């Protein structure tokens, strides 16, 4: 087994050259190159993370924009609704006022007509009374031959008419 048989002659050379070459690997490759390789990887990871963050930010901005647009849309919708409601209310009020005016006119004419009817009616009634008094005087004169004064006839007629 040369590892043991040659141990005494070769250990110094083995250890010396191992330290030389492993040291070279450590200082040139491990300390010199590996940090640069890893820095490149880290830089790439940062770049990717930054790109992803930018994309996320753009997406958030778009979302915010859309939300704002939606809010504006809703507000204008509400405003339109309000204007519509107001116009409706005004139109209703105007038509109500017109209706009321028409109603008032109709009522006035009705009252006028009723008053005219009532006046005609009283005039007619008075005429009927007159005629009735005269007729009553005449009937009494013809039947009983008695002269009845106008006042007496009037009283009697009124009484009779009252019972009608």
């Amino acid at each position, binding site marked *: *087994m040369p590892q043991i048989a040659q141990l005494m002659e070769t250990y110094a050379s083995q250890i010396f050259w191992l330290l030389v070459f492993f040291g*070279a690997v450590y200082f040139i490759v491990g300390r010199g190159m590996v940090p640069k390789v890893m820095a*490149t990887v880290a830089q790439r990871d940062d770049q990717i993370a930054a790109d992803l963050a930018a994309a996320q930010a753009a997406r958030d901005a778009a979302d915010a924009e859309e939300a704002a647009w939606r809010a504006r849309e809703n507000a204008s919708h509400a405003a339109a609704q309000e204007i519509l409601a107001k116009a409706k209310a005004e139109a209703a009020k105007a038509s109500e006022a017109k209706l009321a005016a028409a109603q008032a006119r109709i009522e006035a004419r009705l009252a006028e007509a009723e008053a005219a009817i009532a006046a005609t009616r009283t005039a007619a009634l008075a005429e009927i009374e007159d005629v009735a008094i005269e007729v009553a005087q005449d009937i009494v004169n013809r039947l009983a031959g008695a002269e009845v004064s106008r006042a007496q006839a009037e009283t009697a007629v009124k009484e009779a008419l009252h019972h009608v």
Partner: protein
Amino acid sequence: MAAEQGKVDPMHQFTIEPLVRWEVAGYDLSFTNSAMWMLVTTLVVALFVAGGLKRQLVPGRWQMAVEVFTGFIDDMLEANIGKEGRKYVPYVFSLFMFILFANLLGLLPLGVVGLHPFTFTSHFTVTGVLALISFSIVLIVGFWKHGFHFFSLFVPHGTPAPMIPIIFLIELFSFLIRPFSLALRLFVAMMAGHVLLKVLSGFVINGANAGIGIGALVSIPSFALMIAISALEILVAGIQAYVFALLTSLYINDAEHLH
């Protein structure tokens, strides 16, 4: 040499041969075939990671592959240690890539073109040093962050008072054995795989030399098995590198958080 007797010595592949002799203050620091493959591993790892340094926002295939490895180590440390794990990425990444490429390069069938691949992670002098480095980091971080409070690592919460001395010893022992288990696991796994492949290749060669009948009976099944075991060894190469890095990160987690 064993090959002269018509046999394949499965251990010969682990022999260290000096390429350039060099001695400093009585220590033999020769540039060996082992050191040669450490150099190759270092160059391949550096080339691989350098290919991922284009720093494009949209990565190409190579950059993607390198980023997969750094991301893998980063995630592992994040999962096991948390945010503090980040500062250990350079070390654990170097450790993982160094072991992984050493294991894989040692498996390359370069013998076909006359080269001799050498897996230096099959030497416990190498895995031992790597394990000691990991263990030292655990000790340094532990005592740096927690001071003598670090010893509370050896007394789990809710230990009854009379049990504390015994539990302390057991925990201390299991803690001190970590660098050995770390080093031996990698060394044994790599060596066993290579020995097995070499033994089977010996069967193939010797079977073929012994004639058509024995060749068909021994060599062909052995060769099929070698293919399957080579696939398994590629898996083991990855798994052992992963286990080394994972256990290192778990031990560092102990030092950072004390359970």
